[in-house]
């Protein structure tokens, strides 16, 4: 009984975190977008700089009608957003939020995350196929092509970290980086870990379908890509999954390269509570960087996208893993 309760609590905490974070980041995204363009953005809802606007948006989406297009595959259509969100939510299980809290302390944590996030591809393809809409299908196909090809550099750069840390357990990866700023993986084997981080960051950007890799939902070409036909809460699920994924890849970047819940000052400001603070703020920093990149860079063409993945990221990450592996053996 207590075990069941523990499991429930452990699963509810990441969900609550995702919901609160999604509301905060929706607001941040709009605000960053408007301030980058020298505008003000929301100013009314809730008083201070429209802080309640995402809540209002969410309530609006909740109260909207569910439209299922004619001739769509009903079961897949309803299942797709659930799978997309469930896949990114499931990956949160292996994220160590702090030294004492991790929902599932797997000794194959990294492998589990790589595997479970691949489920997103299936959900997206289901959504595109079942919508009975050419734009949805095109968007889904692009998305799948993109995610599948970018998974290789992502996995390779994660493997570089695994070589350095010598473990697949994310909690142990964090433990190995204890003791201040210069024990973080990013500063090991200079500059190869930094290159690995750059590759991981670019590839993860493509995996979560963010600009400049947002061709699956290219507004100017495909209406909205794979979620063109979705309304109401189902659409919100896709949205939530996108933002959950954004923090997921940022959190993994923080864990693998930037010490996870470790304080940058060694023993100073460390402990379970500070651990949550450091982990979340490191993650949010990368989410902020993703948002800034969205409002900085234009969208890539499909051939450019494939060029970046197969001709730049993959060969360099191969070379990188070789060099780091050799260095680690010789050391």
């Amino acid at each position, binding site marked *: 009984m207590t075990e069941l309760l523990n499991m429930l609590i452990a699963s509810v905490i990441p969900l609550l975190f995702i919901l609160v974070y999604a509301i905060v980041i929706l607001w941040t995204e709009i605000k*960053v977008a*408007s*301030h*980058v*363009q*020298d*505008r*003000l953005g929301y*100013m009314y809802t809730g008083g201070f700089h429209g802080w309640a606007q995402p809540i209002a948006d969410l309530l609006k989406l909740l109260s909207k009608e569910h439209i299922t297009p004619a001739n769509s595959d009903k079961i897949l259509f309803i299942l797709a957003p659930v799978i997309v969100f469930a896949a990114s939510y499931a990956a949160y299980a292996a994220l160590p939020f702090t030294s004492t809290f991790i929902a599932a302390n797997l000794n194959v944590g990294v492998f589990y995350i790589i595997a479970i996030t691949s489920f997103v591809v299936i959900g997206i393809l289901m959504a595109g196929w079942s919508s009975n809409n050419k734009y949805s299908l095109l968007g889904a196909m692009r998305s799948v092509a993109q995610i599948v090809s970018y998974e290789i550099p992502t996995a390779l750069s994660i493997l570089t970290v695994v070589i350095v840390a010598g473990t697949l357990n994310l909690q142990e990866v964090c433990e190995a980086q204890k003791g201040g700023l210069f024990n973080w993986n990013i500063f090991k084997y200079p500059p190869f870990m930094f290159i690995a981080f*750059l590759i991981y960051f670019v590839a993860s950007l493509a995996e979560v379908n963010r600009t400049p890799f947002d061709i699956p939902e290219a507004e100017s070409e495909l209406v909205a890509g794979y979620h063109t036909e979705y309304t109401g809460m189902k659409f919100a699920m896709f949205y939530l999954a996108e933002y959950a994924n954004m923090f997921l890849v940022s959190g993994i970047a923080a864990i693998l390269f930037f010490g996870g819940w470790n304080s940058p000052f060694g023993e100073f400001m460390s402990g379970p509570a500070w651990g949550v603070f450091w982990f979340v703020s490191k993650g949010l920093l990368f989410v902020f960087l993703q948002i*800034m*990149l969205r*409002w*900085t*860079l234009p969208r890539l063409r499909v051939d450019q996208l494939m060029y970046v993945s197969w001709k*730049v990221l993959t060969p360099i990450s191969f070379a990188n893993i070789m060099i780091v592996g050799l260095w680690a053996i010789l050391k």
Partner: protein
Amino acid sequence: MKEYFKNIFVALWTILVGLRLTFKHLFVRAVTIQYPDVKLKLPERARNRLYVNIDDCIGCKQCEMACPVDCITIETVKALPNEDLGVTSTGNKKRLWVTKFDIDISKCCYCGLCVYPCPTECIYMTDVYEFSEYNRHSLIYHFSNFTPEEAELKKKQVEQFELEQKMKKAVKPVEQAVANNPANPEEKS
């Protein structure tokens, strides 16, 4: 090969340049304003909603004639001799009752051509530009002091008066003719 690495470095460098630019713009003061709360000052001679100071109108209908889209409708009634309409603020004597002065602002093209011919400068453009309405008929502005009933009454009065005048005139020439007939050589010949 050299080209390949150069391209990668150029890509990374330009991303950083772009990020620096957007980051700078995060702290630039917004160029937009909170419109209904804050309003920009209009140019000095901005043309917006028309206004008629009906007290100064002498009913010359020059604005009606100048209007290229015929959005001004004026009806006037002559003042009776015993009625003094006073003078306008520019000193022109008013001789006509302006019983109807309607401007259909939905037709108005804000050219301002009606403003220039006005001898008393009573029709002019104001700086009011927020006058949307739910009903199109609300966009027809009535500037006259007369209600339609009063205008009708006035018209009838004047008609009555003119009729009386005519009667008098009709009577008078006869009287005159009678009186002057013997002493009028031209009529004879």
